[in-house]
């Protein structure tokens, strides 16, 4: 019960910070790299200095002369403050355990420290801020610290921060300050960036690829005076690779989903697959569309060369071609069309060099009877998917290729024997 008072008597030199009775052990219990200096403000406005020696998300181990028991507010940074209450039964000497009663972030209140706050206090980024702010003139240091802390609140930067380094540039040489010492940066690129920053007197930024092509760095050159400055380097490789993988997976999921939702009628193809599709069969006609009047021309050309077997499907084919070509005028600067004949089908190909179709809009367009004036794809896709037997699609930032297949057998009437 009174372990702390006993300990104070018997083993006064034993550290509270490492004691499991003082603060329960656990993965979230951490010592900041350096004790964090703070102020505790009492209800009556009286201020006491303190240092955070150990913490978890709900408790702080503080060295302070503020009276315990007592409730205090701690202002950690601009929009982050805590209400804490000293626990009289824990601690000895000037070291006391404080419960975190409330965490105020801007307008929100929480009952414990969140991830970002926790990492800010326990991680080496605090260090980082100190180091970076040493690069700037004394009168700007607090401002820079403030700004950097505000930026770091967003977790993307937090993640990036774990892979990076800070260097001081002076008299043409770089000196490692903090961060990953073994992070290898291409010297010509960073020298160039620093010189640029110093010459312009302003922060310069560049994203570069390492010489072996394997890593991507986000570099920031900060000038200090006419001959020196600081360099921040973030290694973005993992982040970018992760994003690429996620996009690939997303694309794959869409391919499968679109095929399933449309019963295999709509297939998203890779560029390689599309190349194969485009080269099948023989060309019957082609044309270009730059304005609305060209679409009617395309229609009449298509209809003029359709074999008799397709006569019942003429309207649908003309409409599908029209919808696709109208889209090229609406979302690109026009497009090209080609009609080919394969063994199985009449194939209508429409290509443009617009900005591509957003894949996430496709599922809506693939549903039958969907019509919305808000949907930029309109109902063109709904119609194409209805009339065509197969639709192949490749789309991206460099343009869109749409292939509409009209199968011969589907067009013929099948006479069923009288039952």
């Amino acid at each position, binding site marked *: 019960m009174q372990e702390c008072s006993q300990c104070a008597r018997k083993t006064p030199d034993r550290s509270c910070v490492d004691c499991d009775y003082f603060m329960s052990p656990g993965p979230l219990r951490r010592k900041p790299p350096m004790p964090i200096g703070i102020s505790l403000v009492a209800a009556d406005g009286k201020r006491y200095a303190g240092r955070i020696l150990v913490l978890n998300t709900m408790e702080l181990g503080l060295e302070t002369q503020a009276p315990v028991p007592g409730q205090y507010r701690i202002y950690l940074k601009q929009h982050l403050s805590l209400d804490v209450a000293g626990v009289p039964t824990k601690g000895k000497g000037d070291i006391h355990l404080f419960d975190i009663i409330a965490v105020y972030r801007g307008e929100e209140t929480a009952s414990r420290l969140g991830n970002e706050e926790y990492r800010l206090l326990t991680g080496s980024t605090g260090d980082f801020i100190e180091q970076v702010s040493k690069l700037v003139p004394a009168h700007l240091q607090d401002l820079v610290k403030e700004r950097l802390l505000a930026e770091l609140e967003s977790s993307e930067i937090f993640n990036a921060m774990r892979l990076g380094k800070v260097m001081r540039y002076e008299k043409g040489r770089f000196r490692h300050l903090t961060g990953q010492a073994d992070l290898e940066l291409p010297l010509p690129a960073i020298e160039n960036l620093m010189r640029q920053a110093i010459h312009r007197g302003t922060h310069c930024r560049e994203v570069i690829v390492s010489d072996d092509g394997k890593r991507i760095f986000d570099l920031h050159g900060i000038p200090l005076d006419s001959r020196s400055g600081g360099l921040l380097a973030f290694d973005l490789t993992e982040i970018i690779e992760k994003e690429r993988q996620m996009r690939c997976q997303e694309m794959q999921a869409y391919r499968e989903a679109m095929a399933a939702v449309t019963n295999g009628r709509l297939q998203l193809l890779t560029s390689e697959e599309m190349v194969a599709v485009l080269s099948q069969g023989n060309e019957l006609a082609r044309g270009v569309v730059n*304005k*609305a*009047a060209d*679409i*009617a021309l395309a*229609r*009449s050309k298509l*209809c003029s060369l359709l074999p008799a077997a397709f006569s019942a499907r*003429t*309207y*649908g084919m*003309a*409409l599908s071609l*029209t*919808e696709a070509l*109208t889209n090229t*005028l609406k979302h690109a600067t026009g497009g090209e069309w080609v009609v080919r004949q394969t063994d199985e089908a009449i194939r209508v190909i429409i290509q443009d060099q617009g900005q591509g179709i957003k894949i996430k809009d496709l599922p809506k367009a693939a549903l*039958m*009877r*969907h*019509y919305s*004036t808000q949907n930029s794809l*309109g*109902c*063109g896709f*709904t*119609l194409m998917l*209805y009339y065509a037997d197969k639709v192949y699609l490749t789309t991206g930032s460099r343009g869109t290729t749409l292939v509409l297949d009209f199968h011969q057998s589907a067009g013929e009437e099948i006479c069923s024997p009288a039952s």
Partner: protein
Amino acid sequence: MLAISVTKGDYGRCLNLKGELDMETLATLERAAEVQEGEGQLEINLAGVSFIDSTGLRGLLEIQRRWSMKGGKVRVINPCPEIAEVFRLVGMEELLDCSDQSKATGGEY
């Protein structure tokens, strides 16, 4: 191409369309409808229309909405079977007057 002739019937003024209604020709229809605004009821006769696409359909819907907001009424009549099907596919069949009998026009494109 789209040609429009105006006649007067029991319902009101009637715009008789002949040709194709798409992105290129929609403006022609819009102007013709605008001229008739204030007439109360308008009929749009598609008997002579050989082709209509989603742009044309949307245009018809817009005209009907605009008239509706001003207390008027627009009805669309005589689509050929293929065109009636397109109305159905995009969920706009209410735009077609239900008493209308679709008459094939021998579609020419």
